[in-house]
């Protein structure tokens, strides 16, 4: 079956635990070939959202469609297109890797022959070729996480849902998993939840930030990086002039002295005075050593967005 353009569509999901409203009217869309990052503080509702999208939890209201199939009218059909890796990988620790992955494949309705082939492919994708006969309980956390991802992709679903896939892994394993996720996204579509901003930066195409059960920001990760950028640069002069002279340059809004030789120069977004500064520095002998544009880190952006939302409430 050809994978449709919009692989997952969720509208107005709400969920309450007891008296506490945990998810308020959440709507999401996932397209084929993209990696969507669900970002948020611990306790924002990311795991609850993913549980609702995969059928482990029923939302109080709202609609979900997977590849155009209504999740509540035809749950079996819809779930066949899903692969889910929860926060704790659902591994049967007394089974061997092969046995477990074949079971996962058969569970999703694959015939024995197709399951055997899919096993070889999934093990190759996740780097588990050598671990086939080993008992899962004897393997390290990195391998167990990989087995968890393997069970989510073995039936080649259109939607792959990963809840914090790189938590607890060492840096080289993290890099391997991220490469794998990017490869998977080429064929299907991936939603992953994380609170690691580096993950968002390296893997995700789009980002949705969640806070207290609501989506407060939604954009491509490239745009997010440019969000509310302070226009300016840091300049270091070995023979600096008095501050007033720097502030007098056309286009400069303010100058702050960070040290005897370093200054932070802020300017209007559309008027960059760095060219003028360079010429002046050479003319007046300020001995310019370094000019570095200011770039907000993703962490700053994230904190700014979530703080703004908290203040606004």
């Amino acid at each position, binding site marked *: 079956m050809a994978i449709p353009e919009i692989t997952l569509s969720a509208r107005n999901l709400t969920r309450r635990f007891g008296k506490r409203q945990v998810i308020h009217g959440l709507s999401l869309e996932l397209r084929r070939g993209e990696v969507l990052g669900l970002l948020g503080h611990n306790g924002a509702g990311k795991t609850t959202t993913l549980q609702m999208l995969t059928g482990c939890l029923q939302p109080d209201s709202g609609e979900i469609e997977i590849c155009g199939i209504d999740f509540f009218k035809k749950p079996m059909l819809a779930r*066949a297109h899903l692969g889910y890796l929860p926060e704790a990988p659902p591994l049967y620790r007394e089974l061997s890797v092969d046995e477990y992955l074949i079971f996962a494949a058969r569970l999703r309705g694959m015939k024995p022959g197709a399951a055997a082939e899919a096993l070889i492919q999934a093990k190759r994708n996740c780097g588990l070729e050598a671990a086939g006969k080993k008992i899962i309980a004897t393997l390290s956390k990195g391998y167990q996480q990989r087995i968890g991802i393997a069970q989510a992709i073995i039936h080649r679903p259109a939607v792959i849902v990963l809840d914090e896939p790189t938590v607890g892994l060492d840096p080289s394993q993290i890099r391997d998993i991220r490469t794998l996720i990017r490869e998977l996204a080429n064929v299907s579509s991936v939603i992953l939840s994380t609170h690691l901003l580096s993950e968002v930066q390296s893997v995700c195409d789009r980002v949705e930030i969640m806070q207290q059960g609501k989506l407060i920001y939604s954009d491509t990760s490239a745009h997010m990086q440019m969000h509310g950028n302070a226009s300016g640069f840091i300049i270091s002069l070995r023979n600096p002039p008095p501050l007033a002279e720097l502030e007098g340059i056309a286009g400069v809004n303010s100058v702050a002295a960070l040290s005897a030789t370093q200054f932070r120069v802020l300017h209007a977004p559309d008027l960059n005075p760095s060219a003028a500064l360079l010429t002046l520095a050479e003319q007046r002998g300020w001995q310019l050593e370094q000019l570095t544009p200011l770039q907000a880190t993703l962490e700053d952006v994230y904190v700014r967005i979530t703080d703004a939302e908290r203040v606004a409430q």
Partner: protein
Amino acid sequence: MPSTWFVLALLQFVFAWFFLARLDAFLEIQPQLAQLANPFGVTITVAAPLYNTAALLLLMLAPMFTMRLIAEERRNQTFALLLSSPLSSRQIVFGKFLGLLIFLTALMSCVPLMLYTLAFGTALDHGLLLSNMLGLLLLTASYVALGLYISALTTQPVIAAIGALAVLAGLWLADIGATADDSPWHVVSPLYHFQNFNAGLLDSNDAAFFVLFSLFFLLLAMRRIDNNRIYG
């Protein structure tokens, strides 16, 4: 899995012990029985008590096996795999039920195997043997269904085991304690209905009881799993 072989070996030992004890007792009184006009055969003096023992042992063993069925899935957090797969709660419940039923039947199969070896020495009452086998199968199904439901209620396997044991033992003791012949405690106790099968009496009343008992608890288990999705 080594532990399963252990269990098989230990159970085989226990049943063989009982078998030999009953066989010994029979051989002791055999000369006296031969003088009777219509003596008891070996089947009714060895096989029937052996099956009765098996039924009682099953009452204690079944909770040990059923406790893991759903409670351990919840504890090890593997239940999400089943819930997010294209499986209905009916498939999950029946799958687990049949899996454990087949396993326990294989476990108990040592009993008829031992009894059939007696055929080398004497004529067996095959009707009685078959009636007992059917009865034990239906009894096992009932115990598994009850244990499965209680396992679905909790996340701790130990609580599931003790809960199932409490219910089964409670039903058994109430059955023994009730002196009136038409007491309601007799109707709801699985072991009471097994007694007819044990004696060689095939009563549709008893068979229907076992089937309804099993279906009742399997349906409750399905409902519990559905509720799991709704209430978290």
